């Protein structure tokens, strides 16, 4: 606190009768109090002569004690303000009581080197046997002013309209964005009720909400899940989003509201919803209207093959089979595309799952469809995850179906589902010892319609892995593949952080 400055602990008495009187009266306690004060203390006679200071005053103003004692207090007042100062002193002398100096005004003091700094001063009269003295406590508020300036700069540069109100809902501070957004000049808002920015139909409930917030003030969104509106000066309304934060001040709790105009976002959301509806309608049309002609093609080709068999030779019969197979292939493609669209749009309902149990059931279905296949299935332990059961089933169906299909030509087919650590995180995998793939194309595996095998070799829609990838992505996870030609394939996948439970 204190700097060594020789006689610092002992206020020096100046020459003059009243000064010596005080020096004799001032006891050790008084001096200690003076030195202990955090503020610079300057004690003057009623007519403005400095008789006592503490060491904080020396430090703050850059004068040595001896240079101040006996001087007029105006020495510490900036030159531009000195002329009026004696007048203010006279006023205080007429009505001496404890009060702040120049309340509401910005006060400045002057150092020895002529520089100015902002201060806050409180005055108290000291009655002594030798007449009234005035004690001033002077506090350097440079830091506070700086903080205030930073705060204001921050307030003005915020992208949102910032409105700060007190507990009674009176606006104490707004920024330029508020003026722009609501159409009021700042002066018209300060001191007004914040309800002037709220549409009339919400006025009844608003003070109650404010009281509730004041009772439990924390940073949060206003009216979560509700549609909020602001009211402009011209009476028009606009949709807004508000976040609230409490500001504790010596004058009590203030509430800061960051207000964002979401008209544009609302408009974009409406357009997006319309586009999505259109897309839904489109997939619905795909499902129905594109399937109907396929049914006709397949059906009449079949009828021709069945009922006119005697009029067609083997080549003709073969052509009919091609027509039918094409129609069936396209029907499968449509279904696969619809499936892809569906996994992209249905709501996720994650729950705790055992992937081994799901895989067993899928393998069971595959075995039932092709009873002649001999495939060894290996299920790892602890294959637990939190994910959407319907989507995970689709995922496993696709991966296991692939493994099943691509291992059809090896003598001892093995399909394995398990988990391994990858980069410290657990990942599930589905592995087979089948045809594999050229690792140069590993990235292309997941693109829709991308196929790495000829349709004659291994039939497929080219949608399956795209669907799997979409499912993994919707869970916030990742999928990747390893493999080599005729060396089998392994598909790794995760369901995002925390969804794959550690064993």
């Amino acid at each position, binding site marked *: 606190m204190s700097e060594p400055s020789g006689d610092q602990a002992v206020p020096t008495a100046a020459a003059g009768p009243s000064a010596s009187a005080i020096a004799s009266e001032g006891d050790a306690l008084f001096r200690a109090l003076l030195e202990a004060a955090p503020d610079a203390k300057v004690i003057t006679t009623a007519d403005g002569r400095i008789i006592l200071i503490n060491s904080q005053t020396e430090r703050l103003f850059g004068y040595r004690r001896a240079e101040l004692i006996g001087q007029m207090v105006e020495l510490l007042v900036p030159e531009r303000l000195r002329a009026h100062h004696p007048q203010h002193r006279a006023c205080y002398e007429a009505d001496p009581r404890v009060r702040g100096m120049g309340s509401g005004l910005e006060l400045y003091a002057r150092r020895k080197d002529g520089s100015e700094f902002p201060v806050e001063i409180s005055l108290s009269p000291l009655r002594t046997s030798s007449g009234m003295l005035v004690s001033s406590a002077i506090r350097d508020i440079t830091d506070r002013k700086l903080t205030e300036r930073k705060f204001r700069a921050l307030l003005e540069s915020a992208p949102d309209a910032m409105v700060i109100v007190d507990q009674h809902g009176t606006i104490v501070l707004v920024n330029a964005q508020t003026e722009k957004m609501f159409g009021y000049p700042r002066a018209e808002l300060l001191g007004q009720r914040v309800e002037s920015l709220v549409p009339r139909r919400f006025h009844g409930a608003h003070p109650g909400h404010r009281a509730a917030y004041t009772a439990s003030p924390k940073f949060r969104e206003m009216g979560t899940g509700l549609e909020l509106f602001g009211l402009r000066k011209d009476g028009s309304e606009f949709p807004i989003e508000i976040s609230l934060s409490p500001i504790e001040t010596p004058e009590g709790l203030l509430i800061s509201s960051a207000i964002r105009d979401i008209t544009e976002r609302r408009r974009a959301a409406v357009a997006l919803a319309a586009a999505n509806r259109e897309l839904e309608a489109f997939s*619905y049309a795909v499902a129905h209207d594109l*399937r*109907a002609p396929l049914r006709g093609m*397949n*059906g009449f080709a*079949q009828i021709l093959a069945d009922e006119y068999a005697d009029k067609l030779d083997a080549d003709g019969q073969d052509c009919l089979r091609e027509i*039918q197979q094409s129609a*069936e292939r396209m029907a499968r493609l449509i*279904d696969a595309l619809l499936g892809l669209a569906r996994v992209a749009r249905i709501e996720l309902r994650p729950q705790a799952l055992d992937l081994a149990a799901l895989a067993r059931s899928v393998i069971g279905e595959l075995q039932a469809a092709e009873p002649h296949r001999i495939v060894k299935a290996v299920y790892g332990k602890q294959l637990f995850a939190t994910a959407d059961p319907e989507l995970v089933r689709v995922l496993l169906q696709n991966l296991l179906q692939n493994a099943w299909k691509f291992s059809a030509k090896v003598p001892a087919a093995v399909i394995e589902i398990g988990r391994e650590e990858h980069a410290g995180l657990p990942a599930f995998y589905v592995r087979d010892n089948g045809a594999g793939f050229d690792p140069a194309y590993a990235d292309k595996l997941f693109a829709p319609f991308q196929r790495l095998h000829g349709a004659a070799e291994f039939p497929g829609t080219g949608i399956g892995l795209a669907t799997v990838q979409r499912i993994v992505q919707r869970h916030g996870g990742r999928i990747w593949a390893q493999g080599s030609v005729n060396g089998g394939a392994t598909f790794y996948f995760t369901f995002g952080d925390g969804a794959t439970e550690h064993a």
Partner: protein
Amino acid sequence: MSKHILLVEDNPTDEKLTLRAFARCGIANDIVVMRDGAEALDYLLRNGAHRHRDPALDPAVVLLDLGLPRLSGLDVLKALRASETTRLLPVVILTSSREEEDIIRSYSLGANAYVRKPVSFAEFAEAAKTLGMFWLLLNERAPAQRRSPLP
């Protein structure tokens, strides 16, 4: 034509296919076809052009497509369930759609079954045969509304 099927289908190709599929199991002659929802409803509720239809000739089952001109399949179903004379009439939705929402809405409105038309004709013929056998031969209809007995 004591027991027959009402097919409500607007697509002529599908109509032909369906009739052929039924023909394969010998029930082609027991099928009445309506080509839009409003006409089907008039037929079943004996309104408009069909107001003189003999109520004894109600179909054993209605095979109802969802995408129909004028009144949709679901609108027809809703109207049938709202009418005293047809609320117990068996209705099978026969459609291309496998959309979860269509299936749920159909059952919610009181459909008795939901069958997706397969693309493969072999499967379609099989489905037609099963449907015909079940609704024309196996299923017992709800009796016509009886008059209240005298007190």
